[in-house]
């Protein structure tokens, strides 16, 4: 049986950090955005909604390529950063984190928007009448009532980032300990016909993902909202 070496552990750590941070950042960003999107159906909102969905459409390698061009030392963002005395973002963990956030944006925004739209105004009105302020209402009413949407958003985002490959390959360049994530490592093993390692890592990934999803869905199930 294949043994996890330091390269694998490094990749696991990078991957886990990347998925976790991406999910957290995306939920924080997507929640207000989705809320706003769900509040109405003006032309402008529809435009924003369509734009938010665009990262889905570009092939990940192409998205990675454009991000590379933008975040690298010759791109608008990268150059500006360098002029300010910072590092450009290509081939860095920060870079692939930004890429992951953009790349998985639709997976967080769309389910949340849909969940918020399904809420209706009544629960919020009820909570207001019972003395709950805005944040309290969000925490105790909006969030639990759209928890299904949050679970979908979080699992799709996490899993999508876990399986992210093209973007990271282009923008990250598989630098061990920094941008070399599990997906790249597995691919590398497979291409090197190092099948033992590829199979083992894939299996591990599947088992881990299955266990996580199973736990998440089981917990979600215990908080089922009553439907009349």
């Amino acid at each position, binding site marked *: 049986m294949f043994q996890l070496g330091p390269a694998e552990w490094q990749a696991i750590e990078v991957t886990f950090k990347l998925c976790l941070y991406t999910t957290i950042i995306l939920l924080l960003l997507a929640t207000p955005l989705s809320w706003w999107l769900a509040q109405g159906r003006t032309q402008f909102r529809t435009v924003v909604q369509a734009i938010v969905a665009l990262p889905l459409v570009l092939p990940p390698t192409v998205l990675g390529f454009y991000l590379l061009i933008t975040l690298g030392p010759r791109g608008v963002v990268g150059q500006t950063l360098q002029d300010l005395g910072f590092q450009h973002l290509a081939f860095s963990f920060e870079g692939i984190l930004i890429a992951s956030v953009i790349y998985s944006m639709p997976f967080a925004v769309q389910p949340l928007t849909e969940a918020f739209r399904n809420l209706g105004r*009544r*629960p919020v*009105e*009820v*909570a*207001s*009448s*019972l*003395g*709950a*302020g805005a944040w*309290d*209402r969000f925490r*105790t*009413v909006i969030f*639990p*009532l759209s*928890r299904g949407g949050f679970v979908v958003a979080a699992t799709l985002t996490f899993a999508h980032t876990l399986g992210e490959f093209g973007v990271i390959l282009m923008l990250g360049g598989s630098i061990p300990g920094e941008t070399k994530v599990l997906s790249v490592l597995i691919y590398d093993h497979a291409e090197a016909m190092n099948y033992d390692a590829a199979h083992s890592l894939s299996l591990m990934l599947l088992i881990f993902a299955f266990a996580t999803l199973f736990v998440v869905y089981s917990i979600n199930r215990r*908080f089922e*909202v*009553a*439907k*009349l």
Partner: protein
Amino acid sequence: MTLYLQGHLRHGKDFELKVNHELPLEGVTALFGRSGCGKTTLLRIIAGLERPRGAVVRFGGQHWQRGRQFLPLHKRRIGLVFQEHSLLPHLSARENLLYGYQRTPTEQRRLHPDEVTAMLGIEHLLDRRIDQLSGGQRQRFSLGRALLISPQLLLLDEPMAALDTQTKREIMPFLSRMAAESGVPIIMVSHSPDEVTRLADRVVFMQNGQIQNVETLREALARPDSPLFDDAGAASVLEGTLGEAGEDNARPFGPPEARLWLTSSAPAAGMDRTRISILARDVSLSLVDPQHISIQNHLPVTIERIDPPRDNRCVVACRTADGQLLLAEITARAVQQLGLATGKQVYALIKSVALLA
């Protein structure tokens, strides 16, 4: 304490609500009007759930809405019972009940879960999920939840529509007391004349998005054409002192010259002034004081006014010996046969059992 409301609001192209009224608030105010006349909309404006531009809402001395100024609902301390079921589906029955209570500062709490659940008869249902409650049970939880924030104003949109008479009977005195003793004004939408008669101190009649008029319960009851009534028709409210029961259990009401005898379900003695309401159709008139008849209460009265007949029935307004107004509803045929006319002295026959406490 008054509630000043001014503003107007359109819903679609058919409906426009327009108000500019200062409503007295003490006790219970009933909002009465036909389906679709704007009662729910009015409550929503008061609560701040609708925010028509330029409207003014003033509760007592406090402006809840005026120009840019707008106090959001959660700071108004309004106990709100929505017309339709509105329990929060992710919370248990208990959590729903306590949601507002937990958000009420301890020093403002006047009501506590134990008394409210006991009053509403829902103690045994606290651990249920809300989809395990019947329609009436859900309505009681909604009411309890609103009461438990110890509000400074209660807005109830048909809070007892799904409840059986007995349950209503248990709840109504509680609400009455709450309004009277804790001084929490109640504005209540109700389609049930019985509820209004029992609870309200004042009736706001609405029609087509406008407040038609605001009357005390007594005025509202006295109108023979009052929209409050279905077949019961007009009624009069008499005030007097209720005495102790004699050996046959009948209790005297009012001064000797206008004495009535009450029997059942009379309120506890010792109250100074008691209010009773008498349906006009429960009052008959007789030229002589009849004997050998089961009707116990015969009052000498003077006819003050005979309304023109509607549907062959006339409402006859009579003045009792202690100067109160008593309405009798009799057939036009009887008016003619007995030769009734203004100023005539007759006997009003009131079935003692017809007296409502």
